[in-house]
């Protein structure tokens, strides 16, 4: 990954020196293992802070909303798709952006790795295909592909879809079945589904990390904060919690790129992607749509075809 980092630094330094942009949005080294912190860099001297490795799972498109200056942003496949969505939804202008594309081999799942060890992990390093985990009295090397975030495992757009610079050569895309888990739930009876999601959501503390980590969630007033009328209660009542998750997901219908930011951000480890993935699957099956691939197509809920499927309507 160090070659990615040095290439990113090199491009960033050049862009700042040539005054092509005022700010670079990227990552700096985190203070704990398997975490990096989104950051901004405004001078060529500070470019040294930037890093790239398998802990850059945050979707940086989240930091673009409403910015006014000329920006260079580092973008994995999913980030680039959300940048496209942001441009389509007028949250940022294409002309403002210089996109430094990063062909992405997936981000590692911190929760999964943490749960593999009883003792505290003190240090994690990586080397091409391998992740080495060290802690008090243990050291273990893992295959990176075994510990990827769930969304990265099934990612079919690892290369950025839109970019001005590239931090590395493009890579082969995967051919995978994206919806095995969704189909499993679809096959359940209503009763089973209900209790499945009750269990899934029972740890939720309504902190809204899933919502806030999502680059799609930029409404000035979220529906959970509306008071006249109040659509959803603010307690941890299971009915309210479920309604929150349902509406949050539905609000991302046809826009979600499955970047995994929501799931990664959840402090309770809830698989919140199970909601958005269902919508993603339906958008693909009903409307042939994948979010964030093109600047020239309107998202599925912003358009229609006269012959859209309607067998569910009497």
């Amino acid at each position, binding site marked *: 990954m160090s070659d990615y980092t040095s290439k990113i630094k090199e491009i960033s330094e050049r862009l700042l020196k040539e005054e092509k942009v005022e700010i670079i949005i990227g990552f700096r080294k985190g203070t704990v293992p398997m975490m990096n912190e989104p950051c901004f860099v405004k001078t060529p001297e500070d470019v040294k802070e930037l890093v790239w490795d398998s802990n850059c799972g945050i979707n940086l498109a989240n930091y673009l909303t409403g910015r006014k200056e000329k920006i260079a942003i580092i973008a994995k496949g999913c980030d680039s798709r959300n940048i496209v969505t942001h441009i389509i939804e007028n949250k940022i202008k294409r002309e403002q952006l210089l996109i430094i594309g990063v062909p992405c081999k997936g981000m590692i799942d911190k929760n999964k790795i943490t749960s593999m060890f009883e003792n505290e992990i003190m240090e994690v390093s990586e080397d091409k295909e391998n992740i080495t985990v060290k802690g008090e009295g243990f050291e273990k090397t893992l295959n990176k592909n075994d510990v990827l975030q769930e969304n990265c495992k099934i990612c079919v757009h690892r290369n950025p879809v839109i970019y001005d610079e590239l931090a590395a050569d493009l890579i082969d895309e995967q051919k995978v079945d994206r919806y095995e888990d*969704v189909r499993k*739930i*679809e096959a359940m009876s*209503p*009763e*089973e*589904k*209900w*209790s*499945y*999601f*009750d269990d899934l959501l029972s740890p939720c503390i309504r902190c809204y990390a899933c919502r806030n980590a999502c680059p799609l969630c930029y409404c000035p007033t979220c*529906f959970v904060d509306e008071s006249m*009328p109040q*659509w*959803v*209660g603010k*307690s941890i*009542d299971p*009915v*309210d919690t*479920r*309604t929150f998750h*349902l*509406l949050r*997901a*539905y609000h991302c*219908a*046809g826009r979600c790129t499955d970047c995994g930011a929501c799931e990664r951000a959840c402090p309770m480890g809830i698989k919140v992607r199970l*909601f958005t993935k*269902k*919508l993603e699957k*339906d*958008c693909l099956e*009903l*409307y042939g749509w994948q979010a964030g691939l093109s600047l020239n197509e309107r998202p*599925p*809920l912003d358009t*229609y075809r*006269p012959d*859209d*499927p*309607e067998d*569910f*309507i*009497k």
Partner: protein
Amino acid sequence: MKDWKPRIVGFLCNWCSYGAADLAGVSRMQYPPNVRVIRIPCSGRMSPKFILAAFMKGADGIWVSGCHPGDCHYMEGNYYARRKFALFKNLIEYMGIEPGRLHFSWISSAESTKFARVINEVTSAVKALGPRKHGIKTMPDELVKSKISMAK
């Protein structure tokens, strides 16, 4: 359970299905009385929040009806609505609401017969499912416990 009467909320478009309801009434058609009608300006105005709010407050079934594709008073409101409905219906059924709870239809203001037929279908589908078992907001356990302990 025999005496149980379902509570169904019907969201009807002002320009078509609402008129059909009127016509069905004027024509003295017989249909079940379990639907509470809320008039909406267009099926395109229908927000998923309305459906969730009705379900949270205890509706046993929900029925949304608008103009036939191509006949929207606002040209294309129902086309957009159709996509929203498809995704929404799939999502709430995926989360465990039974398929017979949420219904959609296209009924023009002249189709009083269809109106009566659909309201029959909706009502019998909801009746067949019985009362909702989940997802109705009730008073929290703590309050229930408090009442029990006060009664002791």
